[in-house]
């Protein structure tokens, strides 16, 4: 399994105590959609700012002191290291508190945790990126990473969908990928509005219509669980083997380091062994516990 290389992951230990977060400052906030924001942040500590490194697909535990911690993936690319980004959809207590923060606010960060996308495995392949809604956040890190080293990869397809035009995240990226002649970018919405001239339809359907070739290709899928569930069968139909499908999973997490227990699927801990998995790894449990 080529994906094994991800176990060779990068780690950053927070001194002696892994649970002690680093203080980071929010530098900029971008309103992506009515309920999603991107936060640009950087560490307060000078040395850490210089030395921090991570891989596309890894996540961190972000703290709002007094409210709690929640895991989010780093949505910026390691190839563009001047600042870090993460995107948050407002769904619960911590995310709502994050949305109340303004630029200059201090948050806590510990990480990066988990594995990243297996870049080595993707090299020299045709790549199909399939994302829905906020699921573009981890993929975006990978897409920029790949585009910044464009010659290492072959054909690139991006299929991105959202519920409505207003729910499309990272529109500034979507625009530049559309401009990019080396990328085949397709955007779709479940239901358009009056001004929407693009495609309508669910991501799995659009994927089926576009039918990218499975030959020497890898599909990287990220989105809401229901989208993932319907996308895998389509990919299979297109000839993708389980080893050619990669996704990242989302679970409730607290510690982020494989101890607190709740993110397990069988003997796999999503925080520690994931969040990036190949479908070959997860197909056994995807039906029953995912």
């Amino acid at each position, binding site marked *: 399994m080529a994906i094994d290389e991800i176990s060779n992951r990068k780690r950053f*230990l927070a001194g*002696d*105590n*892994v*649970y*002690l*977060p680093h*203080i980071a*400052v929010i530098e900029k906030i971008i309103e992506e959609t009515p309920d999603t924001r991107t936060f640009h942040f950087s560490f*307060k500590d000078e040395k850490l700012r210089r030395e921090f490194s991570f891989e596309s697909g890894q996540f961190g535990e972000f*703290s709002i*002191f*007094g*409210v*709690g*911690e929640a895991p989010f993936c780093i949505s910026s690319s390691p190839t563009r290291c001047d600042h870090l980004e993460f995107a948050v959809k407002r*769904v*619960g207590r911590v*995310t709502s508190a994050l949305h109340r923060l303004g630029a200059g606010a*201090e948050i*806590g960060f510990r990480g990066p945790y988990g594995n990243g996308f297996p870049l080595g495995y993707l090299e020299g392949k045709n790549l199909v990126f399939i994302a829905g809604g906020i699921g573009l956040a981890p993929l975006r890190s990978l897409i920029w990473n790949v585009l910044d080293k464009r010659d290492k990869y072959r054909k690139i397809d991006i299929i991105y969908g959202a519920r409505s035009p207003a729910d499309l995240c990272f529109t500034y990226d979507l625009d530049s990928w559309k401009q990019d002649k080396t990328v085949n970018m397709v955007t779709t919405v479940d239901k358009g509005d009056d001004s929407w001239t693009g495609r309508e339809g669910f991501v799995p359907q659009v994927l089926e219509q576009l039918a990218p070739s499975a030959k020497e290709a890898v599909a990287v899928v990220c989105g*809401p*669980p229901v989208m993932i569930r319907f996308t895998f069968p389509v990919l299979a139909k297109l000839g993708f083997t389980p080893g050619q499908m990669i996704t990242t999973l*989302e*679970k*409730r997490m*607290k*510690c982020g*380091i*494989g*101890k*607190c*227990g*709740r*993110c*397990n*699927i*069988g*003997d796999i801990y999503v925080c*520690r062994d994931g969040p990036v998995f190949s479908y070959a790894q997860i197909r056994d449990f995807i*039906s*029953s*516990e*995912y």
Partner: protein
Amino acid sequence: MTVKKIAKKELARLLDEWSRQFSVLVPSVETGVAQMTGWQGEDTSFVDWYRNTILPPKDAILPVMEEMFSFSKNEDGYRLEMSPPDSGRQLIFGIRPCDARALAMLDVVFKQDYEDTYYMRRRLNTVLVGIGCTNPYDSCFCTSLSSGPSDTAGLDLMLTDIGDEFVIEAVTEAGRELLDKSQGMRPATADDEARARESRDIANQRVTQNVDVKKMPDRLLAAFDNEEYWRKIAAKCISCGICTLLCPTCYCFDINDEVSDNRGARYRSLDSCAFCIYTKMPVENPREEKWQRVRNRVCHKYEFYPRLFDTIACTGCGRCIRLCPVNWDITRTLNSIPGQ
């Protein structure tokens, strides 16, 4: 290793002596529930009544809750301060073999990958002095899990009751050192050791519950998708947290912040996979239903943990059976996995 003995009436003096170096914990019901609490001197009657505690001794290392660090805010922003440990070196006296073995299992989890500071700083400062069981409960099934009333795994010192005296055996180097330094010890004679052996044999025979754990991970894997079975097994479970919170090998925890006025702190507290919100995400919950949670608990102990660490994460202490309000008995489940 060294084998010595001490008279039971000397015990109070010994604990006093150890109290000078350690914060000594002994079984008591002082708090209203049987648990390990600080040695207050004099009263060693627990050696007669005590069979096992309700709160497992893991509480002294992985407490029900603990402060991790505090945070405060001033004009320069947040300042974090790690919370100091609550005690220096501690000695748990009278821990039962099942609970000591359980700590060895927790060690693996808290050491692997990222070392858990809070757990490790207590663990490394803890000496475990066990007393072999002479009167196991009818719910004990330790002998099915390569443990037993006289199992020494995880202990530093092991005491065996031979009537008016305890035979004391050093299990680890640290135990030997402590034993050598302790006053009032006499060497155990061959006769004493024979009596200790006899006492152990009797105790072993008194553990009557039996679980066949051969190939357990594979059997559970085969039964994993048997929803009907798990639904049936789980029907009477009420999804409380007793079996997990009081289990010596359960370690799941939750992390929460608490703020009062200008000071805030982050706490870690034990959590339970029996609770529906344990895995609940804003949109989905992978273990929404009771049978899924029951399955996870059983499989974590008998399938997932063994796959990861090569040993079953259960020592057969029987707490979950004794204390369950509906008598949900894990041994009945394990003995009825389909396909046996």
